[in-house]
């Protein structure tokens, strides 16, 4: 079972694009790790306005956390992280600085 947690901001474009982002993340996981899209779980956590802050100011950031095989080499990890960032930019029009992606070794702690 592949797992993603996506933390996004209510009312921002990522929320409106959840379906497209889900499809894109599943496709990416299939290409990168051989995931079965039907067995991929995406937990969307939508943060209410005034509940997210970056550098002490209202946040525009999306956070994506994905479980990956323990010890995944950097040659595979980095391109995957980059691809997730690019697909968020493509689907939401956000700045790349507003996407934080973590490829977490093993089961997610959240």
């Amino acid at each position, binding site marked *: 079972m592949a797992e993603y947690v996506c933390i996004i901001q209510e009312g921002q474009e990522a929320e409106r694009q959840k379906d497209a982002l889900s499809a894109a993340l599943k496709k990416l996981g299939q290409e990168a790790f051989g995931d079965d899209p039907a067995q991929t779980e995406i937990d969307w956590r939508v943060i209410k306005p005034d509940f997210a802050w970056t*550098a002490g100011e209202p*946040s525009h950031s999306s*956070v994506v956390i994905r479980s990956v095989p323990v010890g995944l080499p950097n040659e595979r990890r980095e391109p995957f*992280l980059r691809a997730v960032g690019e697909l968020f930019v493509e689907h939401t029009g956000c700045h790349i*600085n507003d996407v934080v992606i973590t490829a977490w070794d093993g089961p997610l702690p959240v």
Partner: protein
Amino acid sequence: MPLYRCAVQEGRTTRAQREQIAKEVVRVHCGVTAAPPSFVHAFFTEYPASEMPGGKVAFVLGSIRQGRTDEQKAQIASDLGESVATALGCSPAEVAVVTADVPSKWIMEGGELLPEPGEEAEWLERHREGPDAH
């Protein structure tokens, strides 16, 4: 990164209190680690009081880059606990702050892997148009 996830009791915080805590997260984290403030995140989630860990008013989990010393992490927990308690008007015993280490190479922000602690200057130079620009 860092990402501080703050679980708070439902209806217990105002916008002003959350903003104050978010600014304290920046002040404490950057003061202890000398990290730049640009990418310090504080995200809040509300839970019913009955579901709060240990019955706390606030529970803060800071995911921070691996490489900080035990002393730095203890200082963050202590100082931020005090700050959150002050902001919420509760006792420090009603607040818990813990940190979790995440290797830099596991995280990408601004389209690049994060630098190791202490190696941020060049990385930041490439990301001047960061969240501060908003």
